[in-house]
């Protein structure tokens, strides 16, 4: 199987062309939102926390929060790209139907849309990483690279979950509920803004299941806390497992829905 076959590339090319019109907005967003977040959380909130004499496991707040902000951007970007647009592709503009009428296969459509979303997610990630660097949020170059690597794994694995769900549902209200009750809590409770062990013990499993927590925490472990580095291989396997399961499911769902 050629994962970047002609059909896959055609789908990516189509998505790129369709998004050319709003490139300006996308770019501004990709750039401004990290600046705003880092300023508010890293600098503003960080100053309160530092003044309170607190560190997280010996790490300043800016360094602590930076990997989480980068990874969650990757996650939220692919979610935005792979939820409503997917449902819309089936229901509103019927773009998948149109693609399927050509020699492009369902698996190619799945890969094409996923890769396109990941490209967007990674563009945002890289910009974010650079902004973090400007704020002095990385302790080392490797640390930034680890963060990009885990963001990519996260984008692919979480992205395919969103794609799978959105290909399955008929109504956009389900997506809104998914976003509010799954995506947002993941963003807020995955050890993003504070260490997971601050939460009551019964809430901590949310974090262990969360792809975002795995990506963030592994980056932190590899960058700051070598004694926790064992987490990284586990996280990689976990994320790849999610990816495989949901990829296979997505192809099946796409095939079924398109040939209905």
């Amino acid at each position, binding site marked *: 199987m050629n994962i970047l076959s002609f059909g896959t590339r055609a789908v990516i090319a189509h998505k790129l062309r369709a998004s050319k019109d709003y490139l300006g907005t996308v770019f501004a967003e990709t750039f401004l939102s990290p600046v705003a977040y880092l300023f508010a959380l890293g600098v503003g909130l960080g100053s309160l926390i530092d003044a309170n004499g607190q560190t997280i496991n010996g790490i300043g707040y800016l360094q602590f929060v930076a990997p989480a902000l980068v990874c969650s951007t990757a996650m939220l970007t692919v979610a935005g790209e792979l939820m409503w647009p997917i449902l819309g592709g089936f229901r509103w503009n019927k773009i998948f139907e149109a693609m399927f009428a050509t020699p492009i296969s369902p698996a190619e459509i799945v890969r094409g849309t996923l890769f396109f979303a990941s490209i967007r997610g990674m563009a945002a990630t890289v910009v974010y990483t650079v902004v973090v660097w400007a704020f002095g949020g990385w302790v080392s170059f490797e640390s930034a690279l680890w963060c990009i690597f885990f963001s990519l794994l996260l984008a692919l694995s979480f992205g395919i979950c969103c794609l799978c769900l959105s290909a399955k549902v008929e109504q956009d209200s389900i997506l809104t509920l998914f976003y509010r009750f799954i995506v947002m809590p993941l963003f807020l409770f995955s050890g993003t803004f504070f260490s997971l062990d601050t*939460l009551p013990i019964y809430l901590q499993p949310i974090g262990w299941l969360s792809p975002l927590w795995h990506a963030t925490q592994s980056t932190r472990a590899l960058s700051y806390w070598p004694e926790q580095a064992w987490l990284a291989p586990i996280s990689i396997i976990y994320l790849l497992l999610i990816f495989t399961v949901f990829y296979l499911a997505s192809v099946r769902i796409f095939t079924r829905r398109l040939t209905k």
Partner: protein
Amino acid sequence: MSAIIPGLSSMYAGNAGSVISRGVRATKSTNFWIVISGFFEPVFYLLSMGIGLGALVGEVESSGKLVPYAAFIAPALLAVSGMNGAIYDSTMNVFFKLNYGKIYQTMLTTPLGPLDVALGEIFLALLRGGLYATGFLGVMQLFGLNLSWTAILAIPAVIIIAFGFASIGMGITSYMTRFQQLDLIQFFLLPMFLFSATFYPLSVYPEGVQVFIQALPLWHGVELIRALTLGTFSAGHLWHLLYFVVMIVVGLIFTSRRLKKLFQD
């Protein structure tokens, strides 16, 4: 009435009520759960930021009073939820009705005028905002974050804040022709959300930045509500209210003019 405001008779049929009841009906049959779920968003934020971050931040000073971090950000989140609710209703929702649903076009073939439509839609946004505010205030009470009886006044205050944002938001939305342009709105809201003394006092900023933030509406909303729930309200806080009154009047005039132009040209 039309003698006072020229052209009013062509814009207003005095039947905004039918626009409101249409909204309630549509919500009942299609977006009931969405509306309910909207209540949880600020609650999640409160749990995450207030409890999780509270442990790191400790106590914060506001109007000369030392308060727990959760009590400091809860009123800010309340103000933000008022803003977001109003913005959602007056932008996403209005945009859809304007460009895809053609719902306003239909309304305007009946005696309804642009002002009926604007008032009706804004009232709906406020109704929703008011419900969220009440629910959130209940959650705050549960966590012991309301430090004074004046907290109850936060409900009308949130409604006024929402009114200000909704009346302007609708007019702005009417300029948008494509979905992606709506992101521009988020683009202004995000920094406002992050910087308006929501998560930490304004005093961490240099003087110049402080003045800039004080010109933005959300800061006024946050200060007003915070004073009410922490019990530090005084006559000095009334000018925040005045800010919103001006915003409402300007917004209404702007929006109904826009709608008239949009539909009747």
